[in-house]
């Protein structure tokens, strides 16, 4: 029998959302414990040293969505967080050309005109639409999703807020908004652009992390999950967290500990203790048990309820809804230690856009075919990747003169098909090697010397991400971002306000509204909800409140 202790609240999982919830609860005066199965904190926002001298952001790798209200509330810069914006990006074509995204608007116009005069103006129209949609959606990120079936004044209030915002758009913009939300990124881009390379460059943001293709309706909305963030107020800008994405988790962790919180690493939750429909505590894998009236689970909804909660405590309908919650993994990753900066023969020497996100996709059809492979349980034979070399800007990521490259790969299945059988366990040394080879082959389109400069590569499949981080099926958003799983449907209709059928138990990770990305909004919103439910609604006076 392990140690017993009692806390006001226990947070299961030290991902960025769990830590955010923990910070807000601790700052409100609660005695809070965070338990984490790994020996380190951060979940999928981590900096790992897996090759001596190098730091890998080996899951999430860039930062934009982290809500600025939360950063201010929790004073994260005080705990070491610095987000450095990066410049531009590029897509390399197989014929030795490239399209570069440049942060300077006039240079970007010239660059687009180089490919298509038509598309240069079209880009402005495209950004106008996207920015308007971002402006529309941003106020909802730090609010609860209303329950449309409820007559509670708060739900009606939230619903009215939604209606008011929508009505405020006016008739025409409302129509455009409805269309945008239900369109595919492919159709949306086809409406604006004629050049394949430009379309492919932008389209990636509509499919990253999803189980959808560029022509699947709903992917235009997913694009917003990559554009609605900001760096210092510049909407849509992305940056690196100095020291890797772990800097975010570490800052949250430090903030939490300074507020009096306790973090226990190295042993995950075995099961949540429930009695008479109320949560009473947490039993860890190492046998330790802690008592608490409040549990915030940072694990995804499937993991929380299908693996760590005794099912007799859950209503059948709820259980069924959790089981059908779609959380298919679709992304892999390579983290590479480089002996030197690779050459990009197509680009000018030291072009600033090489410090941004680099891709090799050439057309929407190519991306759609990559999706067709995934549907059949294969990794994309011609994969899409989002590749960056953060060490160009952040000197902490690699030894002097050396570099670190992060390659996010879409699509890779969780349940890999081998010989007619689809299973996560089909990911073994051989298949992982073949997968990495396939990615390297494609990387050579941009930098032919990549293999010779590689010192070490970490290969991450959805299976690995599930095993290590705990994200079910390796889904980076803790649940797909389709309409049946957004707003009041996320994660389960009727339980979309961080609550669960078990009293005192909350879902605070990205399985909850507003969903995935290193946003910390679910964690902050959940904390607000918890504090309100225990009568401490005024304890928060910060920006996110």
């Amino acid at each position: 029998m392990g140690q017993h202790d009692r806390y006001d609240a226990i947070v299961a999982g030290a991902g960025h959302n769990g830590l955010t919830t923990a910070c807000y609860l601790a700052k409100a005066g609660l005695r809070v414990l965070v338990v984490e199965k790994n020996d380190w904190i951060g979940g999928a926002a981590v900096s790992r040293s897996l090759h001596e001298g190098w730091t890998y952001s080996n899951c999430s790798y860039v930062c934009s969505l982290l809500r600025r209200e939360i950063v201010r509330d929790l004073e994260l810069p005080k705990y070491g967080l610095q987000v450095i914006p990066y410049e531009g990006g590029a897509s390399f074509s197989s014929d030795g050309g490239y399209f570069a995204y440049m942060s300077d608007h006039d240079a970007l116009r010239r660059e687009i005109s180089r490919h298509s005069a038509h598309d240069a103006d079209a880009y402005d129209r495209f950004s106008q639409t996207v920015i308007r949609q971002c402006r529309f959606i941003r106020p909802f990120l730090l609010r609860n999703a209303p329950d449309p079936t409820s007559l509670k004044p708060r739900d009606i209030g939230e619903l009215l807020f939604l209606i008011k915002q929508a009505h405020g758009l006016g008739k025409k913009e409302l129509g455009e908004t409805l269309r945008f939300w239900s369109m595919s990124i492919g159709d949306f881009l086809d409406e604006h652009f004629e050049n394949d390379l430009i379309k492919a460059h932008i389209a990636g943001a509509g499919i990253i992390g999803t189980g959808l293709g560029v022509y699947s309706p709903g992917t235009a909305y997913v694009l917003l999950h990559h554009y609605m963030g900001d760096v210092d107020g510049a909407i849509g800008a992305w940056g690196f967290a100095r020291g890797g994405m772990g800097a975010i988790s570490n800052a949250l962790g430090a903030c939490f500990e300074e507020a009096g919180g306790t973090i226990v690493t190295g042993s995950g939750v075995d099961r949540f203790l429930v009695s008479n429909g109320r949560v009473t505590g947490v039993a860890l894998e190492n046998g330790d048990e802690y008592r608490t009236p409040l549990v915030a689970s940072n694990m995804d909804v499937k993991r929380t309820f299908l693996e760590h909660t005794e099912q007799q405590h859950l209503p059948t309908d709820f259980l069924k809804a959790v089981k059908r919650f779609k959380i298919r993994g679709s992304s892999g990753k390579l983290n590479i230690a480089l002996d030197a900066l690779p050459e990009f023969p197509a680009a000018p020497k030291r072009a600033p856009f090489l410090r941004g996100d680099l891709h090799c996709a050439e057309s929407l059809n190519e991306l759609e075919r990559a999706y067709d492979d995934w549907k059949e349980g294969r990794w994309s034979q011609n994969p899409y990747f989002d590749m960056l070399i953060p060490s160009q800007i952040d000197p902490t990521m690699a030894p002097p003169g050396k570099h670190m490259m992060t390659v996010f790969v879409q699509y890779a299945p969780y349940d890999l098909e081998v010989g007619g059988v689809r299973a996560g366990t089909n990911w073994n040394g051989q298949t992982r090697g073949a997968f990495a080879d396939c990615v390297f082959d494609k990387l050579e389109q941009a930098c032919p010397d990549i293999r010779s400069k590689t010192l070490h590569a970490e290969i991450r499949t959805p299976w690995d991400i599930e095993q290590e981080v705990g994200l079910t099926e390796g889904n980076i958003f803790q649940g797909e971002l389709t309409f049946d799983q957004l707003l009041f449907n996320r994660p389960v209709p009727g339980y979309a306000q961080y609550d669960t059928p078990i009293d005192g138990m909350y879902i605070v990770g990205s399985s909850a509204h507003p969903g995935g990305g290193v946003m910390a909004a679910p964690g902050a919103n959940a904390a607000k909800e918890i504090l309100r439910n225990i009568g401490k609604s005024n304890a928060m006076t910060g920006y996110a409140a």
Partner: protein
Amino acid sequence: MTKHVPIGLVETPFQPRLEALSTAKSWTNWAGYVSPATLDTVEFEYFAIRNQTTLFDISPMHKYRISGPDALEVVNRLVTRDVAKLRDGRVGYVLWCDEEGMVIDDGTMFRYSETDFRLCCQEPMYTWLLDTAWGFDAEIADESQDIAALSLQGPTSFSLLQDAGLGDVAEMKPFDWREIEPDLWVSRTGFTGDLGYELWVPNGNALDLWDRLWASGSHWGLKAIGFEALNICRIEAGFVAAGFDFQPVHTAMRLRRGRSPLELGFAKMVDFTKGHFNGRRALLKQRQTGLRYHLRKIDIGGFKPADGALIYYKKKNEVGHVTSGVWSPTTKRNIALAEFKAPFGEGITDDLWAEVYVNEEGQWDKRLVPVTIEDKPFFINSRARATPPRPF
């Protein structure tokens, strides 16, 4: 396809001359080009416009050619006025709208013939023109990179052109335009409300043109100028500027930033009888249901330029703001363009006050000064219209 594009500002063909003349070293970004804010001092440049003659490089303007059998139909579908009434060899000020009747941009339409036009404007418009011409037999060509242009403005501009061997412009009336020499087109147009011309040449001839004008310039007090001096003159002339007095609707990220030509005071530039044009149905509806704003010329009490000032009714209710405001050295008045929420500015024109903040060496002071609505341009001079023009 060129291999790489330059990053940062690029130069117009006139940059070598401007660079050499710049003592102020004060440059701005105009549509991605290096453009002088001032070359010498604003005061000297301003008085050169009103007293002598000045050269301003307008090459960064976007220039588009609309040609083909349906060209007239396309431009008439584009703009609010009736271009069929514009004769060959004439230039017209035009505005064009989106489907909601909000102004996309304004500019000048140069008519070569019924089948050939050039549109000159601030905002990039190529794709919009392509979309406008869809389904019509007309070609759209972007000439922005090919044509350089100089604006020669001031009372002695005609005399200078005469000395430069371009005396044929004598017979040109305001808004005339013709090919004075092969590959040298001249329009009697400008942004100062005074006598002046704009000269258009292929990029390759740009420096020759500059040198030719410069060679005849000293006698007539020719001075190269930057944007700031010109801006004072355009406000004196009562001209609106995109991005200042209205937001080109395609560039506005926020909703409802657009303004209709009726709201900008251009009702006379909207011809509802010519058939359908973009935004016509919306503008008809707006004419019926009422305008939301009025852009007006105003005179502001006191001597402090009121750019950006809020305007109050009865010193209490906020009813508008100054969109462009300067001290006018010629008329010795504190002038501005201002946007009012209807009915202020048109129905209600009395008891309006501007809130001006004054910083006198670190001491801040808030003043409420009276606002008077003006109908006419602040600067009017008969020499601007005389044909043939007088020597100065």
